[in-house]
């Protein structure tokens, strides 16, 4: 890849590393970000005509630190303070390769709400413009700017240190990072036609950051599991919606449109991660996605294996939505009666949730009881908060009448 696109990719990859170095040195998130923005702008203006420097990362760090130092000097002069705390700018490159990861740990800190963590991660680590993030989440730019600025304030006031988590914190903190990336991916993946372009960008960003985390922590099986899950899910994107944005369920998708390159990469990752024998929820979900993606036709799906994997996932997470999926797998292996029986146990825990009605409707349809199926498709349609799903469920009920 050459030209402006390659230069943009390079800057986007380097931005969080440079920001990490500057925050580490000066401790001020907001000012550091301004300085890095200026350095990136200078690079975007100078590099195309003068050529990319031999050490682009070092170049950006130098420029950002110089801006930061100038800023502190002028602030200090203004305040007539002579004992300014000013550290020496570095000579040459002082980069820790881990700085992107440290920045990610800071942005996904549990002190922040998930919403703030998502916004801050995309802005500071992903390097998306506030306007891009705002349009992806369908809110005004000022609203998103405010959200990001509050998140930075929050970090400042809670005194979250810019460093790698300690061994005690490690597992929980990594879980927060992976969860935020997963949420960003889903925001993009579940996009509807209206805002598609911006939201697809979110999925790509989540995958790119997932690659960065996996690259820095190659031995962490859950980091590999999440990346695999995102790749294996994203591979189906081209077949997931019809020409008018309508939802196409997995069983009816045109599998020739699935992205084989992504599937191969995801499957390879998940197989390698499984070999490490520290199974976690992302790996199990990725493994289930891999089994689906492996079937060239829906009726070649290895349902017994999926049933087994959902059983493991259910025991590990205790999540009733997983139990719901296990009921579907059970119906595919042992027949609809077995699936319906499992649903009875979920009536209390998922009372009023449209997915329970939708799955029950589907299994009742399989078992040859269209009247009962219609009733549950209609109940599901009236409760879902997703327009494409509502249209799909309404249509299913209408087709059975």
């Amino acid at each position, binding site marked *: 890849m050459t030209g402006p696109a390659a230069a943009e990719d390079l800057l986007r990859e380097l931005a969080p590393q440079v920001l990490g170095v500057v925050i580490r040195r000066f401790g001020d998130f907001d000012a550091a970000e301004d300085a890095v923005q200026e350095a990136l702008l200078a690079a975007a203006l100078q590099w195309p005509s003068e050529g990319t420097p031999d050490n682009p990362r070092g170049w950006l760090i130098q420029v950002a630190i110089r801006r930061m130092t100038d800023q502190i000097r002028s602030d200090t002069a203004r305040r007539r303070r002579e004992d300014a705390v000013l550290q020496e700018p570095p000579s040459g490159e002082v980069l820790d390769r881990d700085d992107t990861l440290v920045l990610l740990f800071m942005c996904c800190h549990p002190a922040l709400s998930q919403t703030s963590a998502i916004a801050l991660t995309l802005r500071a680590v992903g390097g998306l413009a506030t306007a891009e993030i705002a349009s992806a989440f369908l809110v*005004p730019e000022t609203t998103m700017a405010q959200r990001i600025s509050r998140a930075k304030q929050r970090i400042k006031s809670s005194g979250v240190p810019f460093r790698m988590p300690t061994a005690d914190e490690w597992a929980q903190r990594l879980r927060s990072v992976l969860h935020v990336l997963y949420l960003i991916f889903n925001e993009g993946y579940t996009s509807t036609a209206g805002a598609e372009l911006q939201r697809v960008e979110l999925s790509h960003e989540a995958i790119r950051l997932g690659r960065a985390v996996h690259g820095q922590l190659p031995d962490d099986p859950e980091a590999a599991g999440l990346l695999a899950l995102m790749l294996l899910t994203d591979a189906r994107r081209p077949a997931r919606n019809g020409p008018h944005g309508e939802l196409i369920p997995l069983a009816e998708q045109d599998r020739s449109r699935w992205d084989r390159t992504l599937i191969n990469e995801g499957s390879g990752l998940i197989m390698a991660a499984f070999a490490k024998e520290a199974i976690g929820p992302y790996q199990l979900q990725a493994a289930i996605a891999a089994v689906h993606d492996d079937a060239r036709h829906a009726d070649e799906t290895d349902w017994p294996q999926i049933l087994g994997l959902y059983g493991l996932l259910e025991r590990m997470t205790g999540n009733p939505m997983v139990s719901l999926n296990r009921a*579907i797998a059970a119906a595919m292996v042992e027949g609809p009666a077995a699936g319906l029986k499992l649903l009875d146990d979920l009536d209390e825990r998922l009372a009023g949730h449209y997915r329970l009605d939708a799955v029950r409707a589907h299994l009742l349809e399989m078992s040859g009881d269209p009247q009962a199926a219609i009733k549950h498709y209609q109940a599901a349609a009236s409760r879902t908060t997703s327009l494409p799903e509502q249209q799909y469920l309404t249509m299913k009920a209408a087709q059975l009448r």
Partner: protein
Amino acid sequence: MTKYLLLMNYEATEVCSVPMTEWAPEDIKAHIAFQQALGRELSERGELVGAEGLSGPELAKIVTFDGVTSPVVTDGPFPESKEFLAGYWMVDVESEERALEIAAKASAAPGLGGKPLQQPIHVREVMSAPSVDV
């Protein structure tokens, strides 16, 4: 994050059956200051997507059309309706609880004599993207 539309109806309640046009100036001022503060709070928290107040029912029109003859336009106000939409907030919030909290605050906007108006606020979730497929 989930978007909610908070609809504020205006209807005569037990607490206040006097329309705002007949309130004392300081009551009107207090009400406006409250609405501005609420708007500022939502905006500072990065939750506000949009908010508008609507002109009164005197300016409302109802349009019906059978697709063949000419559309029928009826002028307001409509004496048969006891309530009408006064305005809305569209918010993008972390949870339903937060949406209900905002609605509760909005419902307690000060009215005549500074007493909370207790207007009913309808909280409606906005349709969004489907969940991840399985």
